[in-house]
């Protein structure tokens, strides 16, 4: 069954792998190893001296109830962001796929938000929802709803999720749309002739055939929610109110770059590395089994 390409010598394969391996070594393994090493010390910010504390940084972190609750916050946040970024994207892709006229224009416009950097997206949403001067907050006020994400943790979470997911919808849309185009029309037509209605066709044919795309997006979006959203959180809530939106990676940033506590920050990176590693293993072990290639 399997078709293998074999090389005769070893020079060419090594040369082909080397650039990627080198990049991974320099930009991934080396910093990761540094983080592991630094997590065993409490250094001063300027790197003039540092004290070996063994696992002291980890002990300090795991004893901190705010750090432990940050795991729960992260789980809620990344689940919500992933869902909020994928479901609308799938819906839009399905709708755009059925368009006959002007599909190109819709597609282009739907892709635009992806070009907005997370921090900028954060500022945009903040402007709209600012409790005192925001347009949306003002309209909500007219409707009798007193919006204040500065003090209300549920509203704060909703806002950072929306701001984080918004730009991501475009990215997911692109992949879903491409995935839909790759599904043979003949399959869908055959089902239609057999009398399957749209939703029946969608759930029994389209969705299973999209599963490789969906799985890929699931992994990519979870990683996004874990690592790339801190710009949004930094601009909108700075992790507040009362740490309600402090996700793990935001705490790495704020302890390291605001608090200058590089020991704790490194220890948190190491923990985060383990968490994401485990998550990816779980995804590949259990979710991937349900994926049809």
């Amino acid at each position, binding site marked *: 069954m399997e078709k293998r390409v074999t090389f005769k010598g070893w020079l060419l394969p090594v040369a082909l792998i080397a650039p990627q391996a080198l990049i991974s070594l320099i930009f991934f393994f080396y*910093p990761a190893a540094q983080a592991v090493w630094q997590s065993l010390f*409490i*250094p*001063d*910010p*300027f*790197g*003039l001296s*540092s*004290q070996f*504390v063994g696992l002291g940084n980890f002990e*300090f972190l795991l004893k*901190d109830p*705010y750090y432990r609750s940050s795991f729960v916050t992260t789980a809620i946040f990344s689940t919500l962001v992933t869902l909020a970024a994928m479901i609308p994207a799938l819906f839009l892709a399905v709708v755009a796929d059925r368009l006959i006229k002007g599909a190109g224009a819709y597609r282009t416009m739907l892709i635009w938000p992806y070009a907005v950097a997370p921090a900028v997206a954060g500022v945009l949403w903040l402007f709209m929802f*600012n*409790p*005192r*001067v925001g347009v949306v907050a003002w309209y909500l006020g007219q409707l009798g709803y007193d919006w204040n994400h*500065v*003090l*209300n943790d549920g509203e704060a979470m909703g806002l950072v999720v929306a701001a984080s997911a918004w730009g991501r919808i475009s990215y997911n849309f692109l992949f879903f749309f491409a995935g839909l185009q790759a599904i043979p029309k003949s399959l869908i037509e055959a089902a239609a002739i057999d009398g399957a209605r749209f939703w029946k066709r969608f759930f029994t044919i389209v969705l299973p055939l999209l599963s490789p795309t969906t799985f890929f997006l699931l992994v990519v979006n979870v990683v996004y929610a874990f690592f790339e959203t801190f710009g949004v959180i930094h601009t909108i809530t*700075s*992790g*507040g*109110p*009362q*740490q309600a939106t402090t996700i793990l990676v935001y705490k790495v940033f*704020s*302890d390291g*770059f*605001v*608090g*200058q*506590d590089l*020991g*704790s920050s490194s220890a948190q990176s190491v923990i985060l590395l383990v968490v994401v590693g485990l998550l990816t293993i779980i995804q590949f072990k259990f979710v991937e089994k349900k994926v049809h290639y």
Partner: protein
Amino acid sequence: MTKFSIAATAALTTALSTLAASAETEVQFWHAFTGRLGELVDAQVETFNGSQDAYKVVASHKGNYSETLNAGIAAFRAGEQPDILMVFEVGTATMMGAKGAINPVFEVMGDGFDQDAYIGAVKGYYTTADGNMLSLPFNSSTPVLWVNRDKLSEAGIDPDTDLSTWEKVGDVLGQLKDAGVDCPMTTAWQSWIHLENFSAYHDVPFATKDNGFGGTDTELAFNSDAQVAHISAMGEWAQDGKFIYAGRRNEGGANFRGGECALFTESSAGYAGIKSEAGFEFDVRPLPYWEALTTDPQNTIIGGASLWVMAGQSDEEYAGVAEFLSFLSSPEVQAQWHQDTGYLPITSAAAELTREQGFYEENPGTDVAVIQMTRKEPTANSKGLRLGSFDQIRGIIDEELEAVWSGDKSAQDALDNAVERGNQLLRRFEQASN
């Protein structure tokens, strides 16, 4: 990664500027100012560069206060540090702890340096226990009470009414609320104004060991009766809609300048912005105090930034730094800076010059901050704060205060919790700096 790129940018900037260097010795100066303040800094630098040929100061903006400090730290680790780094007041303990990374200002300035020329309450934040200046105060301000006079009149309150104590302010807030004002009072920088300055002003400790001046084994102490009483009162006002919380920094400024809020506790340096934007009559009043706690308040403390001289540069560069810092401290430059920005003058001579020029008479209220700052000789509780990880401790205080404003916690619980969480960070800082 960010650290890496900051260092890379720093290296690149330095490399580029070396190309431009000629006979003049270049002095790198990293600061955190943008907008109008950025222009004023550039103007100062230009004047200095035009006044002599030996040195050329190159000013670069490196982001906000936290980012500038980070850029300085990353650059130091990469061996590419600037000569002068602007560090905000909460970073003072971090800089002091980094003995090998800084060159104390009093040493850079040499023998002729007259430290007594600087105003005690301003320089006190940045001096050693024996009174030597480690950094040069650059922009210092202190909190005052801003009043929208029109708003008071509309609510049927005499705009000249006495607002010197929180008791009286409380009554006025009630009247404003009854008159249908949506935002009777708001604040900026809640921790700085309502805990740090509150403590100094009422002469109660914010932290043990003379607010941290006595050593890194200090512990937070802002959960005593005085602070709890104040935060409780503020919490009640928040619940009654008399105090509107807008955010951790100066978000409330937009509401005050827009004419929405009647009273606003904010830095004296808010002057430039309020003067240019406010479409109403405004007043500057001294920060109120609780009559129940004191009848004669202490002085308030400063916020803002100071200039630190980094270690590891050549003697010529240090000579240039000294020259530039003396230039910045000269009465003319200081007086101009004070009048343009609302920041406090750092020398008595500059304050005197401003008075002689008639600025305070033409702009009533601009001297309130100066008087409030210097009204008494600072005590151990009102000299300033020197706490490690203080930027993060402020974050913790913000979180706990927000819980009080939203009614989730009592003032006592919130402050107790803030003290406990903050102390953990202080212990880590103590461990790191030993």
